[in-house]
């Protein structure tokens, strides 16, 4: 009984959701979910969502949002494809660097030009896609073929583990992670506690940029292409994962890192399970929408909110 007292049941729903989704598909597909081949596919499809959500969780704990992530990834991917023609080993560092620069620009627009994050990243998203189209010149760029052979499971799993571990460390065990949540709880109080709100906001966007840069690189070795549509469906998936996992839109100390893992894997298992069932894509979208609505409706903390935004 004692441990039950400590558990806030609302926070458990995302986890129950994940278990529910996995069990549901395990039963309905007759045990296909846990076949090695399929687990690999799940890891594969969670790869992008998970890494992006790790970085996004910091932005969300500050109480911000990012609409430009997919575009930043596409630009990084494109730049990686450009430099890969010179030397493929430049691709990853350049992608990360470019992501960081674009992230910093987001930070600048939000923290220095003092635009709300939604508006800020909406405008930068538009600017970035303009730049993207300029670089691509209406076409697509492709990577040297042998770079495709880098796209191995072991590299992906290593990258995922490293980034998740860094994420956990930053989120829970450093002043930075705690300051993010402090800013999300009350920016003025954080400022009066000596937290440089501007720096924290910059950092979250730059880190997001780094993650997007890395993903741009992985997208390049996965698809062999950089195009205007690269990363276009990333944002919705990441937002869904974050909310399914229970990250609050308002930020603050209610943000927990486990939400990142739970949300990302729920999304991955959901998409994968529906593919295993052989559903039509329009049905998939409908089901995804319903699951999303139920999850958010159950786990959202309306009590502490005066107005539902």
């Amino acid at each position, binding site marked *: *009984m004692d441990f*039950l*007292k400590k558990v806030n*049941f609302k926070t458990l729903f995302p986890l*129950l959701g994940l278990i*529910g989704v996995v*069990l*549901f598909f395990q*039963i*309905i597909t007759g045990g*296909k979910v846990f076949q090695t*081949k*399929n687990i*690999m*596919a*799940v890891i*594969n*499809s969670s790869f*992008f969502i998970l890494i992006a959500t790790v970085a996004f969780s910091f932005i969300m704990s500050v109480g911000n949002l990012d609409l430009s992530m997919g575009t930043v990834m596409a630009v990084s991917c494109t730049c990686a494809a450009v430099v890969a023609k010179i030397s493929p080993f430049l691709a990853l560092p350049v992608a990360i660097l470019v992501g960081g620069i674009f992230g910093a620009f987001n930070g600048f627009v939000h923290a220095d030009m003092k635009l709300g994050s939604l508006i800020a990243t909406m405008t930068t998203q538009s600017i970035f896609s303009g730049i993207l189209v300029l670089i691509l010149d*209406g*076409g*697509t*760029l*492709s*990577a040297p*073929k042998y770079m*495709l*052979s880098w*796209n191995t499971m072991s590299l992906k799993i290593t990258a995922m583990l490293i980034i998740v571990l860094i994420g956990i460390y930053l989120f829970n065990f450093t002043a930075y992670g705690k300051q993010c949540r402090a800013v999300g709880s009350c920016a003025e109080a954080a400022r009066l506690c000596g937290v440089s709100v501007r720096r924290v906001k910059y950092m979250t966007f730059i880190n997001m940029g780094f993650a997007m840069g890395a993903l741009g690189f992985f*997208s390049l070795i*996965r*698809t*062999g*292409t950089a*195009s205007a*549509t*690269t*990363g*276009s*469906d*990333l944002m919705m998936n990441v937002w869904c994962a974050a909310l399914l996992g229970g990250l609050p839109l308002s930020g603050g100390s209610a943000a927990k890192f486990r939400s990142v893992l739970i949300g990302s894997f729920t999304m991955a298992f959901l*998409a*994968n399970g529906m*593919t*295993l*069932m*052989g*559903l*039509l*894509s*329009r049905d998939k979208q409908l089901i995804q929408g319903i699951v999303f609505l139920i999850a958010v409706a159950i786990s959202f903390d309306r009590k502490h909110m005066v107005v539902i935004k």
Partner: protein
Amino acid sequence: MKKKLLAVIMTAAMVVGYLTGCGSTAASNGTKESTNASTTETNEDTTVSKTTGKSFKLAVGLPDSGSTMFSLMSNNITTMVGDMGGTVVFQGGVGASTDATIQFVEDQIAAGANGIIFSPPSDAVLTSVCAMCEEAGVYWGITFRTILDQEVIDYITASDYYIGNCYEDEEQAGYQVMADMNERGIKNVAIISQAKGNTTTDRREAGAQQACNELGMKIVAEARALTQASDATKAAESFLSAYSELDAIFVVGTTGAGMHEAVAKAIEDAGKSDSVKLATIDFPDTMPELFEKDCLVSSAGLISWGYDPYIITMILANQCKGTPISEEPVSIAFPMSSINDIDTANTWTERFGDATTLYYDEDFISSTLDKANNPDLTLESLIEIIKKYTSNI
């Protein structure tokens, strides 16, 4: 506290009940659903006994889903694959981006597909798909699009798992429509098309340009990248007022709905119905009405939108059954036909306006298209079959 505990226990009980309950009903649901999308497991057994060869699972991914055209295509493919003893699933939104395409292929490989057909957004993505399919031992082919990059062609045709490409002959369509107009005495044409760089409309325009050179016609004006019917109206209005010598407006390719109708309306409103005509590629929904008004003079299109994915899926199905039609990857360009009069338009609409129309009936499929039953089926004879079908509007 007790309430909370109780609530959790109740929820758990509900979830368990739901899951176990659903396990059985959903299994039957699953079969029910698959009658829509594919044949049922039991059906499969009978078809397997009817035909020879092993069972197989295919996946088809295309850019859009939900239209009548899509239903017509999926019905036909489902029937055909079922007759040949396999199952097939469809997914929309695949060609929209490279990410979505790769995700589709990865998912389908994981789901245990034996063969995959899709419409690629770019050439470069094919290299990755090729590598993935080779590793997984899955056959694949593409539809709707040609490959321009010679390096990519060389790379994928070297793979044992690439079976080929079925696409429409866009250049020929562009030429055909212009030639039709020439017969009606039309010389000066304004075009409405996509932004330059779109491979489909670029090739259609190339065909049109060739017709201009050979037949002494002229493209006097152009409007590009229109997305809404109102844009088309504006474009048509400015053509009509600026070019008095204009004979026709040629809608080479659009993405929006109702474009053709908007142009027709603009011509009518300008009082130039007699002197200015309309021509299109891709059959508009209101084709018979437009002919009736004597506005439309020529419309080119593949006899049915779903026919080329149908054929490539058939080739893939044969490949998966171990009875390949061709040892080498195929590359079949489908001729587009043009419709010039209201009777043909009406006949066509009657035939393909209905999603249940079958390209080929069951007998023909198992006796002719299934190589296991018809060892004489070769690439050459297949092309004859295609020609016969596409010319028969």
